[in-house]
């Protein structure tokens, strides 16, 4: 039973910030596996001792998954851990065949190495900085590449949500923020990506309940920008 395995592994606690795309990947993965967990909300401007001591190498970055008292850090590492530590529970996130697994890992890694870098330039630059336009151009190119990979499939994994979908969909609530600061429209530039994001939320309740509203993300970012004196 999911509950028994979880308690024999140690209670699961997720240290997260509700807007974090990385943390929300873990929410989705845990829910998909049917694993009970407790979430502790972190204020990234005033990190808890627990968070700082659980992820000292990365200065208390979220997410951290505590398994009993053992921390697992880095969202994609956590996703693979969830698959491997609870193999008989719920569905595996990664496919079974080595080639398909390599393909999924490649695209999740692509999201991590390409998307956050452009995103930060779009929403975290001082007002009017040239980095915003450059960031937007790069982001559109990245989204178009992802769109090509999605092709005509309903999900990156095929007929249903999989590893790459879970890696990317938590960025969807951030699209509105990127659009407002970058001055573009995801739906106009990458209609299939916009449709995929909607499908993820509409057809998968666990995704819908794991992600913040786009307006919440925007308000959060506006407050951050004010605190950093960027406007």
């Amino acid at each position, binding site marked *: 039973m999911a509950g028994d395995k979880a308690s024999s592994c140690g209670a699961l606690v997720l240290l997260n910030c509700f807007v974090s795309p990385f943390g929300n990947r873990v929410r989705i993965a845990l829910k998909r596996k049917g694993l009970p967990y407790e979430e502790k909300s972190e204020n990234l401007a005033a990190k808890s001792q627990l968070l700082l001591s659980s992820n000292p*190498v990365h200065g208390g970055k979220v997410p951290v998954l505590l*398994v009993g008292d*053992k921390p*697992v*850090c*880095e969202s*994609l*590492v*956590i996703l*693979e*851990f969830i698959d*491997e*530590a609870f193999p008989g529970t719920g569905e595996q996130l990664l496919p079974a065949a*080595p*080639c398909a*697994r*390599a393909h999924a*890992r*490649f695209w999740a*890694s*692509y999201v991590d190495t390409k998307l956050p870098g452009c995103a930060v330039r779009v929403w975290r630059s001082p007002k009017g900085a040239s980095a915003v336009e450059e960031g937007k151009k790069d982001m559109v190119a990245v989204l178009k*590449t992802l769109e090509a990979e999605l092709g005509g499939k309903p999900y990156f994994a095929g007929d249903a949500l999989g590893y790459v979908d879970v890696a990317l969909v938590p960025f969807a609530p951030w699209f509105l923020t990127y659009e407002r600061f970058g001055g573009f429209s995801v739906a106009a530039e990458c209609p299939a990506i916009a449709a995929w994001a909607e499908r993820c939320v509409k057809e998968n309740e666990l995704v819908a309940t794991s992600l913040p509203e786009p307006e919440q993300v925007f308000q959060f970012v506006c407050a951050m920008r004010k605190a950093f004196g960027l406007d």
Partner: protein
Amino acid sequence: MAVEKNNNGLQLLGFWVSPFAQRCHIALAEKGLSYESLEQDLSNKSELLLRANPVHKKIPVLLHGGRPICESLVILQYLDEAFPEASALLPSDPGARAHARFWAGFVDTKVFECGVRLWKRKAGSEPQVQARKEMVEALRTLDAELGDKPFLAGEAFGFVDVAVVPFAAWLVSYGRLGEFDVEEVCPRLVAWAERCGERESVAKSIHPPEKVWEFVGFLKNKLGDK
């Protein structure tokens, strides 16, 4: 044997000094898998490379029966999964596997990326000085993680060691670019690097630090800030 005669259908597109390609050479050797090594000219990329990795156009690329697998850490995990009978790189315990993946990722994001800034940005400029601080911190962190263990993976050479050891040949270069004493910053890592160098898989895959330094000079000239 028929399987070995055709190199297990394995080809590796690499570049001699690339630590990422070297990870794959070491992994294949550790697993006792024969393969065809295809050195690439990165100043004039082949059709084969561009078709195999259209997204990044980078090496290493592993071709297995013609099918491409890209990204060194993805390749390493693929080798474990496609060749389960050959000695495993990753441990079997999920917690230990997570630990291994975490530290392999650390090297990519904290050491390699920082290293690029060290040679690329103008010596003494603000970003370069920042990169020096970050490199020292990253190496001290790795040194502490190694601790008193013989290998990063523990008692035996494993996945993290394969992921990190190609960067050992870059330590001299990092120290010179960053103006710090490598032996003082990460003494245990230096000893570990020597220990790893005694393994055949490592010895035949990585190049001497002075050769790397020469290459860094070439990179600085070609791509560094003027």
